[in-house]
């Protein structure tokens, strides 16, 4: 019997994988992919609570799905800006290795 717990553990797994990608990768695009995984995990949580959460029986509880839509829009905006910045950095330095981008350090 699949319940709320299964969805929560699944999205925890997805978020942990995203954190591993963000911390271990050096390529900026791989880091962006990790962020997308985490955003998907958060959105999955919202929808799971909207499906299984405590509300009046028989009526849908759609606030979680509205927040899922907001998360998708924010992810699209974030990906567009991040890729614009990444391509600008690539043009300027011909590398998108995040470990080499340390010109702000003293």
């Amino acid at each position, binding site marked *: 019997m699949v319940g709320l717990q299964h969805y929560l553990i699944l999205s925890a797994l997805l978020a942990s994988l995203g954190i591993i990608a963000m911390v271990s990768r050096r390529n900026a695009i791989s880091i*962006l992919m990790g962020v997308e995984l985490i955003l998907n995990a958060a959105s999955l949580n919202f929808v799971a609570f909207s*499906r299984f959460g405590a509300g009046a029986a028989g009526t849908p509880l759609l606030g979680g799905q509205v927040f899922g839509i907001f998360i998708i829009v924010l992810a699209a905006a974030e990906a567009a800006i991040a890729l614009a910045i990444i391509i600008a950095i690539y043009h300027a330095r011909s590398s998108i290795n995040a470990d080499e981008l340390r010109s702000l350090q003293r």
Partner: protein
Amino acid sequence: MQTTADLIFWIFAAVTILPACVVVFSRNLLYSAFSLLFTLSGVAGLYALMGADFLAVTQVLVYVGGILVLILFGVMFTQKVYDLRVEAISFKRIRAAALGLVVFTSLVSVIRSVPWPQASDRAVQPTSSEIGNLLLSRYLLPFEAISVLLLVVLIGAVVVGKKEVEEESH
């Protein structure tokens, strides 16, 4: 009936998690990007399984049709296609795996310690019209804020790209 829904859940969970592992651990950046396709589709399937039909379609349209193409474009644009290897297994990677494991085990221990409400007795019904009503009544302010944000992103992306062309022409 119930077992069929459970079986579909496990299939979608596998379709979500296994390619996500490839995204995180693959040495080839192009394989990571294409595996993200399956992860995002699996999440869309889970949305549909939970009765969020509008959100599932939005996920396919925006994520699979838009963001993934954008990421693939970025990968192809910034890498030499025959030189897509990312990095070797390093000490940094082991530390990252340990961090992820700690986060996952702590989250699971919290999730397991709470008595969640079990089966949902809520009927699955179309959500689009209700979501539209919510967006224009209760969530009007975030809706307007996010439209302003999209305008800012549109202008910002153009500005970041335009400056690059000017620098190249000089």
